[in-house]
C-alpha cells in the first residue's frame, strides 16, 4: 500500500520497533546472507582480545537493513527512489532499536509526487545509532 501525497503533511511521523534484544545469532544470519564475514560481528574472541571492543557488534548495514523495513512498511514496496544513512553509534547484542521517519517535504516531479523523509534510529537509551534520509514515490 503506497502513501497518498494528499494525506501527508510536513512533520508527520511513522515509528516502528526494529528489534528487541538483538541476538548474536542475527549477526551471524546477516553475515551469511550479505557475505560480510568481518569477525568484528561474529567472533567474540577476536573482537574482545584482538580488536579491543567489549563484544561483537552489528554490521552497520544490518541496522540500515532493519531500518529499511520500517521505511518500506511505510512508503510501500518498490517505491523508494533514494535511501542513505550515516552510522552514528555502534549497535550491540542486547540492543532494542526504534526507528522514525519524518516527512520533510512532498513535491511534484515529472508528473508524479515524491515524499522526502528524515530517518532516525535510536537504541533503548535514546542514543541515535543511524541518521539518514529517504525519498519515495507517492500517489
Amino acid at each position, binding site marked *: 500500500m503506497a502513501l497518498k501525497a494528499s494525506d501527508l503533511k510536513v512533520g508527520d511521523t511513522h515509528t516502528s520497533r526494529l528489534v528487541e534484544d538483538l541476538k548474536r545469532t542475527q549477526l551471524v544470519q546477516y553475515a551469511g546472507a550479505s557475505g560480510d564475514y568481518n569477525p568484528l560481528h561474529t567472533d567474540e574472541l*577476536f573482537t574482545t*582480545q*584482538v580488536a579491543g571492543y567489549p563484544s561483537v557488534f552489528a554490521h552497520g548495514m*544490518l541496522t540500515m537493513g532493519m531500518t*529499511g523495513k520500517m521505511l518500506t512498511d511505510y512508503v510501500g514496496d518498490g517505491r523508494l*527512489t533514494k535511501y*542513505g544513512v550515516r*552510522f552514528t553509534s555502534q549497535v550491540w547484542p542486547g540492543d532494542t532499536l526504534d526507528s522514525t521517519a519524518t516527512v520533510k517535504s512532498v513535491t511534484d516531479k515529472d508528473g508524479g509526487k515524491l515524499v522526502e523523509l528524515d530517518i532516525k534510529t535510536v537504541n533503548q537509551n535514546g542514543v541515535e545509532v543511524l541518521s539518514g534520509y529517504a525519498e519515495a514515490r507517492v500517489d
Partner: protein
Amino acid sequence: MAVRTFPVEATHILMFARSVGDDNPIYADADYAAKTEAGGIIAPPTFAQASAQFDPDYVLRPKPGKPWFGSGKNPSGVVRGEGGGGGNGGGLHAEQHFEYHRHLKPGDVLTATALPGKTWEKEGRRSGKLIFSENVIEYRDQNGELVITARGVGVRTERPVDQK
C-alpha cells in the same frame, strides 16, 4: 570492488530479508508478490550490498588455504606487525547511500563497477585520527541499464571507538 556477475536469485533475497528481520511476503512469496504493484518478488532496499558474495577478491570472506584474521586456536589467525598502536581499530562503515533507478528482482544479472572516490582525514574525539574513504558503485543489469548507484564511506580509526 568489481563484480562481473551478480545473479539476483529468489533464495538469496529470502535469506537476506530474513537476516534483517523483514518478513514481508513481497520478498518470499511469488504468488503474493504477483498480485502487488511490483508484479513479482523484489529485493529489499539494501540487498545490493550482498554483491560482496560475488566479488572473488572480497577481503572479508575466508578463503580456502589462505590466512584468516578471525580466531581459531588463537584469538587471531594472523600475527600482526609491530606498531599496531592501541589495538586494531580496523575499518568501520560510516555512511551508505543508495539511489534506485529501479528495484532488483530475481532473474536480474548485475555487474558492479567501482568508480574512484575521495579520501579525507579528520581528528576524532573517541577514536583518534580518522581516515575516510569513499567508494561509488554502479550496478547495471543484463541490458546494461543503470539500476542502482551506491555510495559508501568507510572509516579507519587509529584506535577502537571509545565507548564512554
